[in-house]
């Protein structure tokens, strides 16, 4: 698959070469624009969100849930004293659409964690992108939970296009069985997960179905051991 993809890209770019050379007239047109002063920068004040982190840190640390327990997924924000209204609204929007498919793990100020089953993750992610404005993924992190024999993959989704969501990170998670770790890829919804998922594949051995390149990325090419971020991989001498 990946080899084909490369070939296709080659062909594309080889074909687009003529296009590029013909577009030099556009370049010259751009250069004719008045250039001498440094280009126009539009300094713009974004309204600062009132979020003193030190105050929220203490509050949220007292109410965090325990990740290693499998039961945490079904214990939503009931234990939370008062979920912030904006975050609650976002969660209600999800709940109205998906109902019980989306399990809310916690609602903290600026952070929402939801968990879905692997088969639902693509549908939920496309709703998050199209209807709620979470337009890119900041990171994809996998965590190994040997007690449950599961691997949890967390997509940290952020937003550039909706200003009121700029401070928010939505954690979209799914758990997969460790023995046959497979998840559907989100690359068709979030282009930004391409390298993150590839890293997750080699570091935790989660195969992303539909990802064009489940291949080596950061590790040496001759790496012949289990994925190193799994808990049963031990550093030598430790």
């Amino acid at each position, binding site marked *: 698959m990946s080899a084909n*993809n490369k*070939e*296709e*890209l*080659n*062909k*594309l*770019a*080889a*074909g*687009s*070469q003529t296009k590029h050379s013909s577009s030099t007239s556009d370049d010259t047109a751009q*250069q004719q624009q008045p250039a001498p002063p440094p*280009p*126009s*920068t*539009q*300094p*713009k004040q*974004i309204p*600062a*969100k009132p*979020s003193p*982190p*030190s105050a929220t*840190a203490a509050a*949220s*640390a007292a109410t*965090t849930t*325990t*990740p*290693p327990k499998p039961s945490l997924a079904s214990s939503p924000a009931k234990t939370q004293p008062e979920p912030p209204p904006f975050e609650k609204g976002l969660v209600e929007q999800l709940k109205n659409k998906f109902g019980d498919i989306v399990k809310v793990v916690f609602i903290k100020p*600026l*952070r929402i*964690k939801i968990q879905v089953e692997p088969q639902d993750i693509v549908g939920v992610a496309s709703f998050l992108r199209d209807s709620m404005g979470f337009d*890119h*993924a*900041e*990171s994809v*992190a996998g*965590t190994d939970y040997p007690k449950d024999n599961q691997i949890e993959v*967390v997509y*940290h989704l952020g937003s550039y*296009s909706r200003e009121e969501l*700029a*401070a928010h990170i939505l*954690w979209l998670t799914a758990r997969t069985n460790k023995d046959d770790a497979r998840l559907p890829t989100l690359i068709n919804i*979030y*282009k*930004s997960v*391409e*390298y993150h998922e590839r*890293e997750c594949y080699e570091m935790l051995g989660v195969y992303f179905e539909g990802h064009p390149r489940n291949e080596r990325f*950061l*590790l*040496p090419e001759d790496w012949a051991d289990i994925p*190193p*971020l799994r808990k049963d*991989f031990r*550093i030598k001498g430790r």
Partner: protein
Amino acid sequence: MTSIEEKFEESKRLGLQIVKESEEDRLMTLSVGPQHPGSGHFRFVIKVDGDYIVYCDPDPGYVHRGEEKMCEYRNVIQNIPHLERPVIHDSANITYSYSLAVEELVGIEVPRRGQFIRAIASELNRQVYTLYWLAIYGIFLGHSTMFMWPTGDREVIIDLLEALTGARVTHAYNIPGGVRNDMPEGFRDRCLSQIRYLQKRFKEYEDIFYNNPLFRQRTEGVAVLSKEDAIKLGVTGSVVRASSVPFDVRKAEPYDIYNEIDFKVQYMKTGDCFARSYVPLLDMQESCYIIEQLLDKMPASGEVRAKLQPNPKGPPGESYRRVESGRGALGYYIVSDGTPKPYRVKISVGSFRNMLALPYLLVGQRLADMPAVYWSLNYWPVEADR
């Protein structure tokens, strides 16, 4: 510039049409790096058709050290010195978000003076990084003066940081709970005078480098990243701000005392190499104002560090905190299981995110534009590999 989807569609379409062996033979494969001085500890494979780059595949990992795995074997304080190794020129920022995440998990309240001092250290350190990057950008576009000037001016801030932290490059200064030690006497006046010197120098940078017609010809209109593509690719920092997305973590999600500071998010609308190289300079100028305000508003005395237990630990939980580093948003995702050692640490770095833009920007460019495009991404290979 076509969008990503169009590119993909076109490649699919062309891939079905053209399967000629003779077309393949025209292409030449070049391996840029990892020993190449123009790429750092990083390799990318490009294919050229005549003078045009038609294919690019990044191959990172030459300086992968397993930072995330190492974190699971040490307690939260022991982790600090090795966590700043991925980007030693910006070590205050890479430990800043780690400290914020640990403070949220353990429940530490940072004293007000400590918050100011570590913000000052981070602002100064961001300038150290950006000056270093600017020097490299200058020399790879053949502008030797722009290599010498920022490298020399960088020493000014490094001396300041040495007075503040005791170390020139790797400070281990921002720690969970505040900063390691208080400011030395007379630091405020010294810092202010150096900031004024730098502000004067930044104007000279503009004259000799950014207004240089040769530099402008090589960067203006080259490798334009549209706003839609920048959002789709999830790039961050100066790259996304050059494509008219005014996103800065200090403004979007103010940490510590940044909600008391008055500053503007500097961004540009053109999205070309020039914008990506000019936004960091604007950031440095804005950073000078921020430092002045921080020095003015800082409490004259008080604690700089919260008292910690020998092995700080909190209840089991997870946190994701980010700061604005020299290369964009720098986030830490930490899972704690209630022991002093983190259960899982994931570092989300700007370089790794910006790398995704490299193939999209390089394909279709001339080979001679490769350094201008590559270094404009504000990419730091060691940080991307972790």
